[in-house]
């Protein structure tokens, strides 16, 4: 696995509900690897932990207790670093019945060490674009100046004139219209779509080796969404930047991702090549299959037939069942596996050609 640019190993990020006196197990033992040059898509519904995973990588979790265990190995050129290195010093866990029930964490020490580890990585080696571009840009500074800042901070173009040229280059690169004009605009003067383009330009301007895109099209209008997806596809083809793409939109993931991980209830339930995972057939996890089936397709719409909904509700990650996390909503349980599904959580079983599925139906 030396090709991996980023390797997340058994990451756990918990939050705490004071009213229920219980942990919200947002990310509950996630392992993922992103290879150099590929786009890994993480898809899942709200609360599955996909965004929290990304924020954990960036060291941007502020709620407590936050990240509690795991390894996040980042390796690029001469830089090899575990972004959670030594952090287990400031956290103490105790388990009951194989489940973490008690966490003592020195958040201050954790944060200081995490910031030290992130130095030179966050913003430089790993850049992120967020769902709400307007909220993530400084409203009091022109767009151009913000991009120039990213260029001078993270690349060798530290001269003022040179950095401005680079910034303008990136604005042109993301096909913003009249880039010279936009350079001097404040974020409020831009439409949602243009703002997202500027945000992408800002992220790319740091020339990162990994780009994390968290719901880059959500909240934009349909026509603009397709333009942003076009842009991301184009950048992918031309720059070939390694990307971690997070979205709930199967369409976006299908268009851009090389490999896909499906998350449910804080866990990866399926991972593999985009084509195999998004096939949504026999060879997939029942959740993936049902999720794909529940999107109204052209045929269903034409016949005005019922949509294939998944019964029940998204797992709340507080009351996590002992068995498979999807068991209650699953419509593929056979009598042969029912008992195992209800009592024991499956691991990721190999389903051939690099695809892994967390389901007892795939047990060897």
């Amino acid at each position, binding site marked *: 696995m030396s090709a991996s640019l980023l390797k997340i190993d058994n990451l756990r990020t918990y939050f705490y509900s004071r009213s229920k006196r219980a942990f919200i197990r947002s990310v509950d033992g996630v392992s993922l690897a992103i290879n150099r040059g590929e786009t890994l898509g993480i898809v899942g519904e709200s609360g599955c932990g996909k965004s929290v995973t990304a924020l954990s990588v960036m060291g941007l979790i502020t709620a407590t207790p936050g990240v509690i265990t795991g390894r996040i190995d980042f390796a690029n050129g001469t830089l090899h670093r575990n972004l959670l290195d030594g952090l287990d010093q400031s956290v103490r866990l105790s388990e009951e019945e194989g489940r973490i029930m008690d966490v*003592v964490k020195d958040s201050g020490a954790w944060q200081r060490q995490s910031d030290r580890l992130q130095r030179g990585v966050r913003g430089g080696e790993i850049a992120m674009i967020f769902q709400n571009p307007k909220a993530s840009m400084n409203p009091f500074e022109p767009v151009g100046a913000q991009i120039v800042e990213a260029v001078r901070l993270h690349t060798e173009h530290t001269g003022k004139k040179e950095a401005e040229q680079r910034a303008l280059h990136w604005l042109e690169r993301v096909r913003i219209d009249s880039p010279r004009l936009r350079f001097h605009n404040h974020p409020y003067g831009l439409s949602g779509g243009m703002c997202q383009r500027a945000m992408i330009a800002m992220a790319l301007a740091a020339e990162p080796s990994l780009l994390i895109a968290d719901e880059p099209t959500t909240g934009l209008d349909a026509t603009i969404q397709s333009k942003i997806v076009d842009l991301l596809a184009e950048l992918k083809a031309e720059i070939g930047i390694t990307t971690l793409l997070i979205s709930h939109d199967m369409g976006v993931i299908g268009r851009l991702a090389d490999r896909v991980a499906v998350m449910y209830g804080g866990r990866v339930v399926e991972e593999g090549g985009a084509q195999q995972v998004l096939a949504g057939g026999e060879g997939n996890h029942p959740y993936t299959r049902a999720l794909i089936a529940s999107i109204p397709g052209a045929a269903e719409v034409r016949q005005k037939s019922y949509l294939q909904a998944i019964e029940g509700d998204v797992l709340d990650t507080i009351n996590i069942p002992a068995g498979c996390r999807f068991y209650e909503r699953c419509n593929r349980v056979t009598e042969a596996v029912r008992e195992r599904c209800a009592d024991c959580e499956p691991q990721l079983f190999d389903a051939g050609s690099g695809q892994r599925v967390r389901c007892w139906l795939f047990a060897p």
Partner: protein
Amino acid sequence: MKRFRQRPGEISEFSDLPLWQKADTIDLLYVGYGLLIVSLVVASYLLGALQWLPHDPNALNLNLLLAGPGTPGHLLGTDFMGRDLLTRLVLGIQAYFLPGLMAVASALFGGTVLGVVAGYRGGGAGLIVTFLGNLIDSFPRLVLILLVIAAFKPDIWYIMAVIGISNVPAVASLVQGKIAMLREKNFIEAAVALGLPTRTIIAKHILWYNCKALLIIQATLGMAEAILMETSLSYLGFGVQEPTPSWGNMVQSGANYFLQGNLWPSTAPALAILFTILGFHLLGDGLNNLLEGKRGR
């Protein structure tokens, strides 16, 4: 170091828990302390009404001026005219408790009415209320009070009326802001769309369910402020007038002897003020957290 611990066993829902379990211990302590202060005030009235006081508050004992605490018959000692400190301390709160309540009530009533008009009707009415509020806010309050005293007489009721009226804009803008927030969340529109009559929307949904906590905290803060205000005015000689005891004029008269080493006549009422104001503040804070479930989520 912070500790997080999951309750073992079944995780139950928020609403199933009794109040004392879903509340934070610290909030319960706050409210408990606040209620203790309130009950002491009530006790003061009871003692006064039943004549269960150790002494007559105005009885002079010229043989025993400025006696220290622990003097036989005078638990806290006497003041510069030989009057019993404990008795005067017990009665001191009464000088401004009722006027203070009046101030708070008028601020809440006026503020709520204006806030609802400004927030619910909006438009021109809103602008007028905001303008009036700014006008009153920009006028120095102490000057206003002195003007009223000059025009009428230095009476605690007049002073508290001024305090009440000058607090109206603050309450109004809070209520107005709350309504604006509810509007933002489509809360009011949804109620109108359902067909609820305007009076139900305002009285039940806006005021009772959503402004209750806000008004309670304003009331407790207002009470605390009334006490502080009287103390400052007493220092200028405009507060509750002798011989009626009030904590403010007790501090003031005691302060003359402070430098001579007689700490107690001014320190005792000052401590009473401190603990009472603290009580009202904590009561408001605690109740707000309990009612709004601020810490709970």
